[in-house]
Protein backbone atom coordinates (compact mmCIF):
# COMPACT_ATOMS: atom_id res chain seq x y z
CA UNK A 1 0.00 0.00 0.00
CA UNK A 2 1.33 3.45 -0.89
CA UNK A 3 2.30 5.90 1.77
CA UNK A 4 -0.16 8.54 2.89
CA UNK A 5 2.30 11.44 2.89
CA UNK A 6 -0.09 13.66 1.01
CA UNK A 7 0.89 13.03 -2.60
CA UNK A 8 -1.66 13.55 -5.30
CA UNK A 9 -1.32 10.13 -6.87
CA UNK A 10 -3.39 7.40 -5.32
CA UNK A 11 -2.82 3.66 -5.75
CA UNK A 12 -4.54 2.42 -8.86
CA UNK A 13 -4.97 -1.16 -7.78
CA UNK A 14 -6.54 -2.71 -4.74
CA UNK A 15 -6.96 -6.29 -3.67
CA UNK A 16 -9.12 -7.56 -0.91
CA UNK A 17 -7.03 -8.83 1.99
CA UNK A 18 -7.31 -12.64 2.03
CA UNK A 19 -9.39 -14.26 4.74
CA UNK A 20 -6.38 -16.10 6.19
CA UNK A 21 -3.57 -13.57 6.56
CA UNK A 22 -0.64 -15.98 6.76
CA UNK A 23 0.00 -17.10 3.19
CA UNK A 24 1.76 -20.33 4.25
CA UNK A 25 -1.19 -21.44 6.38
CA UNK A 26 -3.54 -20.40 3.60
CA UNK A 27 -1.83 -22.51 0.96
CA UNK A 28 -1.42 -25.38 3.37
CA UNK A 29 -5.19 -25.39 3.98
CA UNK A 30 -6.03 -25.08 0.28
CA UNK A 31 -3.63 -27.82 -0.83
CA UNK A 32 -4.47 -30.02 2.15
CA UNK A 33 -8.18 -29.61 1.50
CA UNK A 34 -7.75 -30.47 -2.18
CA UNK A 35 -5.67 -33.57 -1.41
CA UNK A 36 -8.21 -34.71 1.16
CA UNK A 37 -11.14 -34.24 -1.22
CA UNK A 38 -9.31 -36.15 -3.95
CA UNK A 39 -8.48 -38.98 -1.56
CA UNK A 40 -12.03 -39.08 -0.24
CA UNK A 41 -13.48 -39.16 -3.73
CA UNK A 42 -11.05 -41.98 -4.51
CA UNK A 43 -12.59 -44.15 -1.81
CA UNK A 44 -16.01 -43.75 -3.37
CA UNK A 45 -15.17 -46.39 -6.00
CA UNK A 46 -17.37 -44.75 -8.54
CA UNK A 47 -17.40 -47.40 -11.22
CA UNK A 48 -18.91 -45.91 -14.35
CA UNK A 49 -19.72 -49.36 -15.74
CA UNK A 50 -21.59 -50.29 -12.63
CA UNK A 51 -23.49 -47.03 -12.51
CA UNK A 52 -24.46 -47.52 -16.17
CA UNK A 53 -25.59 -51.01 -15.37
CA UNK A 54 -27.45 -49.68 -12.35
CA UNK A 55 -29.38 -47.03 -14.27
CA UNK A 56 -31.98 -49.32 -15.83
CA UNK A 57 -32.22 -51.07 -12.50
CA UNK A 58 -32.83 -47.73 -10.81
CA UNK A 59 -35.41 -46.96 -13.47
CA UNK A 60 -37.24 -50.20 -12.83
CA UNK A 61 -36.92 -49.66 -9.11
CA UNK A 62 -38.37 -46.15 -9.28
CA UNK A 63 -41.12 -47.38 -11.58
CA UNK A 64 -42.11 -49.98 -9.06
CA UNK A 65 -42.61 -47.15 -6.54
CA UNK A 66 -45.45 -45.78 -8.65
CA UNK A 67 -48.27 -45.65 -8.19
CA UNK A 68 -48.00 -45.78 -4.40
CA UNK A 69 -50.15 -48.58 -3.07
CA UNK A 70 -52.17 -47.57 -0.05
CA UNK A 71 -54.66 -50.39 -0.36
CA UNK A 72 -53.03 -53.83 -0.29
CA UNK A 73 -51.48 -53.74 3.14
CA UNK A 74 -53.86 -51.23 4.58
CA UNK A 75 -54.25 -53.02 7.91
CA UNK A 76 -50.54 -53.31 8.72
CA UNK A 77 -49.87 -49.87 7.34
CA UNK A 78 -52.28 -48.03 9.62
CA UNK A 79 -51.29 -50.18 12.53
CA UNK A 80 -47.67 -49.23 11.97
CA UNK A 81 -48.50 -45.54 11.71
CA UNK A 82 -50.58 -45.66 14.89
CA UNK A 83 -47.82 -47.50 16.71
CA UNK A 84 -45.29 -44.89 15.59
CA UNK A 85 -47.47 -42.04 16.77
CA UNK A 86 -48.10 -43.58 20.19
CA UNK A 87 -44.43 -44.43 20.48
CA UNK A 88 -43.45 -40.86 19.61
CA UNK A 89 -45.88 -39.37 22.14
CA UNK A 90 -45.01 -41.63 25.04
CA UNK A 91 -41.25 -41.44 24.45
CA UNK A 92 -41.39 -37.65 24.23
CA UNK A 93 -43.35 -37.39 27.47
CA UNK A 94 -41.12 -39.87 29.31
CA UNK A 95 -37.97 -38.37 27.82
CA UNK A 96 -38.92 -34.85 28.88
CA UNK A 97 -39.94 -36.02 32.34
CA UNK A 98 -36.46 -37.53 32.70
CA UNK A 99 -34.82 -34.49 31.09
CA UNK A 100 -36.11 -31.98 33.60
CA UNK A 101 -34.09 -33.21 36.60
CA UNK A 102 -31.08 -33.89 34.37
CA UNK A 103 -31.36 -30.46 32.75
CA UNK A 104 -31.69 -28.70 36.12
CA UNK A 105 -28.67 -30.62 37.33
CA UNK A 106 -26.66 -29.75 34.25
CA UNK A 107 -27.17 -26.00 34.64
CA UNK A 108 -24.06 -24.50 36.16
CA UNK A 109 -25.94 -21.76 38.01
CA UNK A 110 -28.29 -24.18 39.78
CA UNK A 111 -26.35 -27.29 40.70
CA UNK A 112 -23.22 -28.06 42.73
CA UNK A 113 -20.18 -29.21 40.77
CA UNK A 114 -20.51 -32.98 41.24
CA UNK A 115 -24.18 -32.98 40.20
CA UNK A 116 -23.28 -30.78 37.25
CA UNK A 117 -20.57 -33.14 36.01
CA UNK A 118 -22.74 -36.22 36.51
CA UNK A 119 -25.66 -34.74 34.55
CA UNK A 120 -23.40 -33.43 31.79
CA UNK A 121 -22.00 -36.96 31.52
CA UNK A 122 -25.49 -38.40 31.02
CA UNK A 123 -26.18 -35.82 28.32
CA UNK A 124 -22.90 -36.44 26.49
CA UNK A 125 -23.45 -40.21 26.53
CA UNK A 126 -26.98 -39.88 25.21
CA UNK A 127 -25.97 -37.41 22.50
CA UNK A 128 -23.04 -39.37 21.14
CA UNK A 129 -24.87 -42.47 20.03
CA UNK A 130 -27.55 -42.14 17.37
CA UNK A 131 -31.02 -43.34 18.40
CA UNK A 132 -30.56 -46.33 16.16
CA UNK A 133 -27.64 -47.73 18.19
CA UNK A 134 -29.60 -47.15 21.38
CA UNK A 135 -32.44 -49.03 19.69
CA UNK A 136 -30.22 -51.99 18.80
CA UNK A 137 -29.31 -52.42 22.45
CA UNK A 138 -32.86 -51.81 23.63
CA UNK A 139 -34.02 -54.59 21.29
CA UNK A 140 -31.36 -56.90 22.68
CA UNK A 141 -32.53 -56.14 26.22
CA UNK A 142 -36.31 -55.82 25.90
CA UNK A 143 -37.04 -57.98 22.88
CA UNK A 144 -38.56 -56.94 19.57
CA UNK A 145 -41.44 -54.48 19.56
CA UNK A 146 -42.38 -50.92 20.34
CA UNK A 147 -41.19 -51.02 23.96
CA UNK A 148 -37.58 -51.16 22.79
CA UNK A 149 -38.22 -48.29 20.40
CA UNK A 150 -39.83 -46.33 23.18
CA UNK A 151 -36.82 -46.77 25.46
CA UNK A 152 -34.38 -45.79 22.71
CA UNK A 153 -36.29 -42.65 21.75
CA UNK A 154 -36.82 -41.62 25.38
CA UNK A 155 -33.07 -41.94 26.04
CA UNK A 156 -32.33 -39.98 22.87
CA UNK A 157 -34.72 -37.27 24.02
CA UNK A 158 -32.73 -36.76 27.21
CA UNK A 159 -29.57 -35.83 25.35
CA UNK A 160 -31.41 -33.31 23.23
CA UNK A 161 -33.85 -31.79 25.66
CA UNK A 162 -31.79 -31.74 28.84
CA UNK A 163 -28.90 -30.06 27.01
CA UNK A 164 -31.06 -27.29 25.61
CA UNK A 165 -32.88 -26.86 28.91
CA UNK A 166 -29.59 -26.54 30.78
CA UNK A 167 -28.27 -24.01 28.26
CA UNK A 168 -31.46 -22.00 28.46
CA UNK A 169 -31.31 -21.91 32.23
CA UNK A 170 -27.69 -20.82 32.13
CA UNK A 171 -28.61 -18.00 29.77
CA UNK A 172 -31.60 -16.85 31.82
CA UNK A 173 -31.46 -13.49 33.52
CA UNK A 174 -29.47 -13.61 36.74
CA UNK A 175 -31.06 -10.45 38.11
CA UNK A 176 -34.56 -11.94 38.04
CA UNK A 177 -33.28 -15.03 39.81
CA UNK A 178 -31.55 -12.87 42.39
CA UNK A 179 -34.68 -10.83 43.02
CA UNK A 180 -36.72 -13.94 43.83
CA UNK A 181 -33.95 -15.37 45.97
CA UNK A 182 -33.88 -12.11 47.92
CA UNK A 183 -37.48 -12.68 49.02
CA UNK A 184 -36.31 -15.69 51.03
CA UNK A 185 -37.81 -18.32 48.74
CA UNK A 186 -36.59 -21.90 49.08
CA UNK A 187 -34.91 -23.75 46.19
CA UNK A 188 -38.12 -25.06 44.63
CA UNK A 189 -39.94 -21.74 44.96
CA UNK A 190 -36.93 -20.04 43.52
CA UNK A 191 -36.83 -22.29 40.44
CA UNK A 192 -40.61 -22.11 40.09
CA UNK A 193 -40.83 -18.31 40.22
CA UNK A 194 -37.63 -17.12 38.59
CA UNK A 195 -36.30 -19.80 36.24
CA UNK A 196 -39.46 -21.53 35.02
CA UNK A 197 -41.23 -18.45 33.60
CA UNK A 198 -38.09 -17.54 31.67
CA UNK A 199 -37.46 -20.90 30.03
CA UNK A 200 -41.02 -22.20 29.69
CA UNK A 201 -42.08 -20.77 26.29
CA UNK A 202 -39.00 -22.02 24.47
CA UNK A 203 -39.19 -25.39 26.18
CA UNK A 204 -42.79 -25.92 25.05
CA UNK A 205 -41.75 -25.14 21.49
CA UNK A 206 -38.84 -27.53 21.77
CA UNK A 207 -41.00 -30.33 23.11
CA UNK A 208 -43.23 -30.09 20.05
CA UNK A 209 -40.10 -30.08 17.91
CA UNK A 210 -38.80 -33.16 19.72
CA UNK A 211 -42.14 -34.91 19.20
CA UNK A 212 -41.61 -34.27 15.53
CA UNK A 213 -38.07 -35.69 15.68
CA UNK A 214 -39.22 -38.73 17.65
CA UNK A 215 -41.87 -39.47 15.09
CA UNK A 216 -39.34 -39.32 12.28
CA UNK A 217 -36.89 -41.46 14.26
CA UNK A 218 -39.63 -43.96 15.04
CA UNK A 219 -39.66 -44.63 11.33
CA UNK A 220 -36.10 -45.98 11.54
CA UNK A 221 -35.88 -47.70 14.90
CA UNK A 222 -38.22 -50.23 13.32
CA UNK A 223 -35.49 -51.23 10.90
CA UNK A 224 -33.55 -52.77 13.78
CA UNK A 225 -36.65 -54.26 15.40
CA UNK A 226 -37.96 -51.37 17.49
CA UNK A 227 -41.53 -51.48 16.19
CA UNK A 228 -43.57 -48.75 14.56
CA UNK A 229 -43.86 -47.75 10.94
CA UNK A 230 -40.17 -48.52 10.41
CA UNK A 231 -40.86 -52.19 10.90
CA UNK A 232 -43.62 -52.02 8.29
CA UNK A 233 -41.32 -50.12 5.95
CA UNK A 234 -38.51 -52.60 6.40
CA UNK A 235 -40.83 -55.53 5.75
CA UNK A 236 -42.15 -53.96 2.58
CA UNK A 237 -38.61 -53.38 1.36
CA UNK A 238 -37.50 -56.91 2.06
CA UNK A 239 -40.60 -58.26 0.32
CA UNK A 240 -39.92 -55.97 -2.68
CA UNK A 241 -43.33 -54.35 -2.21
CA UNK A 242 -42.00 -50.97 -3.25
CA UNK A 243 -45.39 -49.49 -3.98
CA UNK A 244 -46.34 -50.00 -0.35
CA UNK A 245 -42.99 -48.54 0.71
CA UNK A 246 -43.75 -45.48 -1.41
CA UNK A 247 -47.13 -45.16 0.27
CA UNK A 248 -45.48 -45.32 3.69
CA UNK A 249 -42.91 -42.67 2.76
CA UNK A 250 -45.65 -40.37 1.50
CA UNK A 251 -47.62 -40.81 4.72
CA UNK A 252 -44.52 -40.06 6.78
CA UNK A 253 -43.85 -36.89 4.79
CA UNK A 254 -47.46 -35.75 5.18
CA UNK A 255 -47.50 -36.35 8.92
CA UNK A 256 -44.19 -34.53 9.36
CA UNK A 257 -45.53 -31.61 7.36
CA UNK A 258 -48.64 -31.49 9.52
CA UNK A 259 -46.49 -31.59 12.64
CA UNK A 260 -44.24 -28.83 11.41
CA UNK A 261 -47.26 -26.68 10.75
CA UNK A 262 -48.69 -27.47 14.19
CA UNK A 263 -45.41 -26.75 15.95
CA UNK A 264 -44.95 -23.37 14.31
CA UNK A 265 -48.55 -22.58 15.21
CA UNK A 266 -47.99 -23.74 18.80
CA UNK A 267 -44.86 -21.62 19.12
CA UNK A 268 -46.73 -18.52 18.02
CA UNK A 269 -49.56 -19.33 20.39
CA UNK A 270 -47.26 -19.82 23.38
CA UNK A 271 -45.39 -16.56 22.90
Amino acid at each position, binding site marked *: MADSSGTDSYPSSWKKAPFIKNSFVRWLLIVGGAI*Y*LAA*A*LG*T*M*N*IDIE*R*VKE*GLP*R*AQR*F*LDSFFPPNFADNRGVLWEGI*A*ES*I*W*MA*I*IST*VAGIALSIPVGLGAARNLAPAWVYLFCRGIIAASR*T*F*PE*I*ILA*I*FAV*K*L*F*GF*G*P*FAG*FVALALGTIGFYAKLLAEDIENSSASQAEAVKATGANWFQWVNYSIQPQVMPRMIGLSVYRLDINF*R*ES*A*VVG*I*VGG*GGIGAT*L*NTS*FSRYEFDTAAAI*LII*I*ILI*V*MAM*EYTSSFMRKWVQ
Partner: protein
Amino acid sequence: MPTITNNGTESWRLRTSKEQWIRWVCWLIGIAIIMYAWQMISEKTVWFFVTDAPNQAADIGARMVPPKWSYMDKLWKPVWDTINIATLGTVIAMVIAVPVAFATARNTTPNIVVRTIGLFIIVSSRSVNSLIWALILVFILGPGVLAGTIAIGLRSVGFCAKLIYESIEEIDHTQVEAIEATGASSSQKMLFGILPQVLPTIAGVGIYRWDINIRESTILGLVGAGGIGLQLNGSLNTLAWTQVSLILIVILVTVFISEWVSAKVRGAII
Protein backbone atom coordinates in the same frame (compact mmCIF):
# COMPACT_ATOMS: atom_id res chain seq x y z
CA MET B 1 -57.42 -8.67 37.06
CA PRO B 2 -59.24 -11.90 37.81
CA THR B 3 -60.53 -12.08 41.35
CA ILE B 4 -62.82 -14.36 43.28
CA THR B 5 -65.44 -13.30 45.79
CA ASN B 6 -65.42 -15.58 48.76
CA ASN B 7 -67.68 -14.84 51.75
CA GLY B 8 -67.84 -11.24 50.67
CA THR B 9 -64.07 -10.69 50.50
CA GLU B 10 -62.43 -10.31 47.12
CA SER B 11 -59.19 -12.18 46.71
CA TRP B 12 -56.70 -12.32 43.84
CA ARG B 13 -56.38 -15.28 41.51
CA LEU B 14 -54.04 -15.93 38.65
CA ARG B 15 -56.72 -16.89 36.16
CA THR B 16 -60.43 -16.44 35.64
CA SER B 17 -62.71 -19.43 36.25
CA LYS B 18 -63.18 -19.98 32.53
CA GLU B 19 -59.45 -20.05 31.86
CA GLN B 20 -59.03 -22.39 34.77
CA TRP B 21 -61.61 -24.77 33.32
CA ILE B 22 -60.01 -24.75 29.88
CA ARG B 23 -56.66 -25.55 31.42
CA TRP B 24 -58.13 -28.47 33.33
CA VAL B 25 -59.79 -29.87 30.22
CA CYS B 26 -56.54 -29.59 28.25
CA TRP B 27 -54.62 -31.37 30.97
CA LEU B 28 -57.27 -34.09 31.09
CA ILE B 29 -57.15 -34.64 27.33
CA GLY B 30 -53.37 -34.69 27.41
CA ILE B 31 -53.23 -37.26 30.18
CA ALA B 32 -55.88 -39.38 28.48
CA ILE B 33 -53.81 -39.43 25.27
CA ILE B 34 -50.68 -40.40 27.18
CA MET B 35 -52.49 -43.18 29.06
CA TYR B 36 -53.96 -44.50 25.84
CA ALA B 37 -50.56 -44.39 24.12
CA TRP B 38 -48.99 -46.25 27.00
CA GLN B 39 -51.79 -48.81 26.83
CA MET B 40 -51.17 -49.40 23.12
CA ILE B 41 -47.43 -49.82 23.62
CA SER B 42 -47.68 -52.09 26.62
CA GLU B 43 -50.18 -54.34 24.84
CA LYS B 44 -47.47 -55.22 22.36
CA THR B 45 -44.79 -55.74 24.96
CA VAL B 46 -43.71 -59.06 26.33
CA TRP B 47 -43.27 -58.08 29.96
CA PHE B 48 -41.19 -61.13 30.73
CA PHE B 49 -38.41 -59.78 28.52
CA VAL B 50 -38.65 -56.37 30.15
CA THR B 51 -38.38 -57.73 33.68
CA ASP B 52 -35.54 -59.90 32.53
CA ALA B 53 -33.70 -56.92 31.02
CA PRO B 54 -31.42 -56.21 34.00
CA ASN B 55 -30.06 -59.76 33.82
CA GLN B 56 -29.61 -59.42 30.08
CA ALA B 57 -27.85 -56.10 30.53
CA ALA B 58 -25.50 -57.56 33.12
CA ASP B 59 -24.82 -60.51 30.86
CA ILE B 60 -24.07 -58.42 27.75
CA GLY B 61 -22.08 -55.97 29.82
CA ALA B 62 -19.91 -58.77 31.13
CA ARG B 63 -19.33 -60.11 27.64
CA MET B 64 -18.33 -56.69 26.33
CA VAL B 65 -15.25 -56.27 28.52
CA PRO B 66 -12.46 -56.13 27.79
CA PRO B 67 -12.78 -54.62 24.30
CA LYS B 68 -10.84 -56.57 21.70
CA TRP B 69 -8.15 -53.98 20.98
CA SER B 70 -6.48 -56.07 18.28
CA TYR B 71 -9.61 -55.65 16.13
CA MET B 72 -8.63 -52.00 15.71
CA ASP B 73 -6.46 -52.97 12.69
CA LYS B 74 -9.63 -53.73 10.78
CA LEU B 75 -11.37 -50.52 11.86
CA TRP B 76 -9.11 -47.80 10.45
CA LYS B 77 -10.49 -48.13 6.95
CA PRO B 78 -14.17 -48.05 8.07
CA VAL B 79 -13.49 -44.96 10.22
CA TRP B 80 -11.85 -43.26 7.23
CA ASP B 81 -14.88 -44.21 5.10
CA THR B 82 -17.25 -42.87 7.75
CA ILE B 83 -15.51 -39.50 7.82
CA ASN B 84 -15.51 -39.35 4.01
CA ILE B 85 -19.21 -40.15 3.84
CA ALA B 86 -19.96 -37.32 6.26
CA THR B 87 -17.68 -34.80 4.54
CA LEU B 88 -18.61 -35.49 0.93
CA GLY B 89 -22.27 -35.84 1.91
CA THR B 90 -22.14 -32.41 3.51
CA VAL B 91 -20.43 -30.96 0.43
CA ILE B 92 -23.15 -32.39 -1.84
CA ALA B 93 -25.83 -31.10 0.52
CA MET B 94 -24.44 -27.57 0.62
CA VAL B 95 -24.06 -27.38 -3.15
CA ILE B 96 -27.76 -28.18 -3.52
CA ALA B 97 -29.00 -26.42 -0.39
CA VAL B 98 -27.73 -22.91 -1.17
CA PRO B 99 -29.64 -22.48 -4.44
CA VAL B 100 -32.70 -24.17 -2.92
CA ALA B 101 -32.55 -21.75 0.01
CA PHE B 102 -32.37 -18.74 -2.30
CA ALA B 103 -35.30 -20.13 -4.28
CA THR B 104 -37.33 -20.57 -1.10
CA ALA B 105 -36.70 -17.25 0.64
CA ARG B 106 -39.50 -14.76 0.25
CA ASN B 107 -37.22 -11.78 -0.40
CA THR B 108 -35.09 -13.36 -3.13
CA THR B 109 -37.85 -15.25 -4.93
CA PRO B 110 -41.14 -13.48 -5.39
CA ASN B 111 -42.54 -16.33 -7.49
CA ILE B 112 -44.83 -18.43 -5.32
CA VAL B 113 -44.60 -21.54 -7.50
CA VAL B 114 -40.81 -21.65 -7.23
CA ARG B 115 -41.05 -21.05 -3.49
CA THR B 116 -43.50 -23.89 -3.02
CA ILE B 117 -41.25 -26.26 -4.94
CA GLY B 118 -38.33 -25.20 -2.75
CA LEU B 119 -40.35 -25.79 0.41
CA PHE B 120 -41.44 -29.17 -0.87
CA ILE B 121 -37.82 -30.19 -1.49
CA ILE B 122 -36.90 -29.06 2.00
CA VAL B 123 -39.74 -30.87 3.75
CA SER B 124 -39.41 -34.14 1.88
CA SER B 125 -35.67 -34.22 2.40
CA ARG B 126 -36.09 -33.52 6.10
CA SER B 127 -38.87 -36.02 6.68
CA VAL B 128 -37.00 -39.01 5.39
CA ASN B 129 -34.25 -40.21 7.67
CA SER B 130 -30.81 -40.79 6.19
CA LEU B 131 -31.09 -44.49 7.02
CA ILE B 132 -34.19 -44.76 4.85
CA TRP B 133 -32.49 -42.82 2.06
CA ALA B 134 -29.61 -45.28 2.40
CA LEU B 135 -31.99 -48.24 2.29
CA ILE B 136 -33.44 -46.97 -0.99
CA LEU B 137 -30.06 -46.08 -2.48
CA VAL B 138 -28.51 -49.41 -1.63
CA PHE B 139 -31.22 -50.97 -3.78
CA ILE B 140 -30.40 -48.63 -6.65
CA LEU B 141 -26.61 -48.27 -6.47
CA GLY B 142 -25.70 -51.45 -4.71
CA PRO B 143 -24.10 -51.54 -1.28
CA GLY B 144 -21.13 -49.30 -0.58
CA VAL B 145 -19.82 -45.92 0.39
CA LEU B 146 -21.40 -44.12 -2.56
CA ALA B 147 -24.94 -44.98 -1.46
CA GLY B 148 -24.15 -43.74 2.05
CA THR B 149 -22.67 -40.48 0.81
CA ILE B 150 -25.64 -39.68 -1.37
CA ALA B 151 -28.03 -40.66 1.42
CA ILE B 152 -26.31 -38.26 3.83
CA GLY B 153 -26.35 -35.58 1.15
CA LEU B 154 -30.05 -35.97 0.39
CA ARG B 155 -30.99 -35.95 4.05
CA SER B 156 -28.92 -32.85 4.79
CA VAL B 157 -30.24 -30.73 1.92
CA GLY B 158 -33.48 -29.96 3.74
CA PHE B 159 -31.84 -29.23 7.06
CA CYS B 160 -29.25 -26.86 5.59
CA ALA B 161 -31.62 -25.18 3.14
CA LYS B 162 -34.16 -24.53 5.91
CA LEU B 163 -31.68 -22.80 8.20
CA ILE B 164 -30.14 -20.82 5.32
CA TYR B 165 -33.43 -19.62 3.87
CA GLU B 166 -34.62 -18.49 7.28
CA SER B 167 -31.49 -16.41 7.65
CA ILE B 168 -31.92 -14.97 4.15
CA GLU B 169 -35.38 -13.82 5.14
CA GLU B 170 -33.97 -12.11 8.22
CA ILE B 171 -31.31 -9.98 6.49
CA ASP B 172 -31.15 -6.21 6.86
CA HIS B 173 -33.06 -4.91 3.88
CA THR B 174 -31.59 -1.41 3.86
CA GLN B 175 -28.14 -2.76 2.93
CA VAL B 176 -29.70 -4.37 -0.13
CA GLU B 177 -31.61 -1.18 -0.90
CA ALA B 178 -28.37 0.80 -0.80
CA ILE B 179 -26.78 -1.50 -3.36
CA GLU B 180 -29.90 -1.31 -5.51
CA ALA B 181 -29.77 2.50 -5.41
CA THR B 182 -26.33 2.51 -7.05
CA GLY B 183 -27.83 1.02 -10.20
CA ALA B 184 -26.58 -2.52 -9.59
CA SER B 185 -28.17 -5.38 -11.51
CA SER B 186 -30.15 -7.97 -9.58
CA SER B 187 -27.28 -10.48 -9.67
CA GLN B 188 -24.92 -7.83 -8.31
CA LYS B 189 -27.50 -6.99 -5.66
CA MET B 190 -27.36 -10.63 -4.60
CA LEU B 191 -23.55 -10.62 -4.66
CA PHE B 192 -22.92 -7.40 -2.72
CA GLY B 193 -26.10 -6.91 -0.72
CA ILE B 194 -27.37 -10.34 0.29
CA LEU B 195 -24.50 -12.82 0.10
CA PRO B 196 -22.13 -11.04 2.53
CA GLN B 197 -24.93 -11.00 5.08
CA VAL B 198 -25.72 -14.72 4.88
CA LEU B 199 -22.22 -16.09 4.25
CA PRO B 200 -21.46 -16.60 7.96
CA THR B 201 -24.71 -18.54 8.35
CA ILE B 202 -23.94 -20.69 5.33
CA ALA B 203 -20.51 -21.56 6.71
CA GLY B 204 -21.87 -22.16 10.21
CA VAL B 205 -24.68 -24.40 8.98
CA GLY B 206 -22.26 -26.46 6.88
CA ILE B 207 -19.98 -27.11 9.83
CA TYR B 208 -22.88 -27.83 12.16
CA ARG B 209 -24.36 -30.32 9.73
CA TRP B 210 -20.96 -31.97 9.17
CA ASP B 211 -20.79 -32.61 12.90
CA ILE B 212 -24.26 -34.21 12.85
CA ASN B 213 -23.39 -36.19 9.73
CA ILE B 214 -20.37 -37.81 11.38
CA ARG B 215 -22.83 -39.24 13.91
CA GLU B 216 -25.34 -40.27 11.25
CA SER B 217 -22.79 -41.91 8.99
CA THR B 218 -21.67 -44.26 11.76
CA ILE B 219 -24.95 -46.16 11.42
CA LEU B 220 -25.48 -46.26 7.67
CA GLY B 221 -23.58 -49.54 7.50
CA LEU B 222 -26.54 -51.24 9.18
CA VAL B 223 -28.29 -51.24 5.81
CA GLY B 224 -25.11 -51.82 3.83
CA ALA B 225 -24.23 -48.25 2.94
CA GLY B 226 -20.62 -48.31 4.10
CA GLY B 227 -18.74 -46.95 7.06
CA ILE B 228 -18.16 -48.35 10.52
CA GLY B 229 -21.80 -49.40 10.88
CA LEU B 230 -20.99 -52.32 8.58
CA GLN B 231 -18.55 -53.71 11.16
CA LEU B 232 -20.98 -52.96 13.96
CA ASN B 233 -23.71 -54.88 12.21
CA GLY B 234 -21.40 -57.81 11.48
CA SER B 235 -20.14 -57.97 15.05
CA LEU B 236 -23.67 -57.80 16.45
CA ASN B 237 -24.85 -60.59 14.16
CA THR B 238 -21.96 -62.85 15.17
CA LEU B 239 -22.42 -61.89 18.83
CA ALA B 240 -18.80 -60.73 18.96
CA TRP B 241 -19.44 -58.48 21.95
CA THR B 242 -15.82 -57.53 22.57
CA GLN B 243 -15.66 -56.15 19.02
CA VAL B 244 -18.94 -54.31 19.57
CA SER B 245 -17.58 -52.55 22.62
CA LEU B 246 -14.44 -51.51 20.74
CA ILE B 247 -16.54 -50.14 17.88
CA LEU B 248 -18.68 -48.16 20.32
CA ILE B 249 -15.53 -46.67 21.84
CA VAL B 250 -14.24 -45.77 18.37
CA ILE B 251 -17.55 -44.08 17.52
CA LEU B 252 -17.42 -42.19 20.81
CA VAL B 253 -13.91 -40.93 20.14
CA THR B 254 -14.69 -40.01 16.52
CA VAL B 255 -17.74 -38.04 17.57
CA PHE B 256 -15.84 -36.19 20.30
CA ILE B 257 -13.03 -35.29 17.91
CA SER B 258 -15.46 -34.09 15.26
CA GLU B 259 -17.26 -31.99 17.85
CA TRP B 260 -13.97 -30.43 18.89
CA VAL B 261 -12.94 -29.77 15.28
CA SER B 262 -16.25 -28.18 14.36
CA ALA B 263 -16.18 -25.96 17.45
CA LYS B 264 -12.65 -24.82 16.52
CA VAL B 265 -13.52 -24.12 12.89
CA ARG B 266 -16.70 -22.31 13.82
CA GLY B 267 -14.78 -20.17 16.26
CA ALA B 268 -12.23 -19.29 13.56
CA ILE B 269 -14.84 -18.35 10.97
CA ILE B 270 -17.45 -16.46 12.95
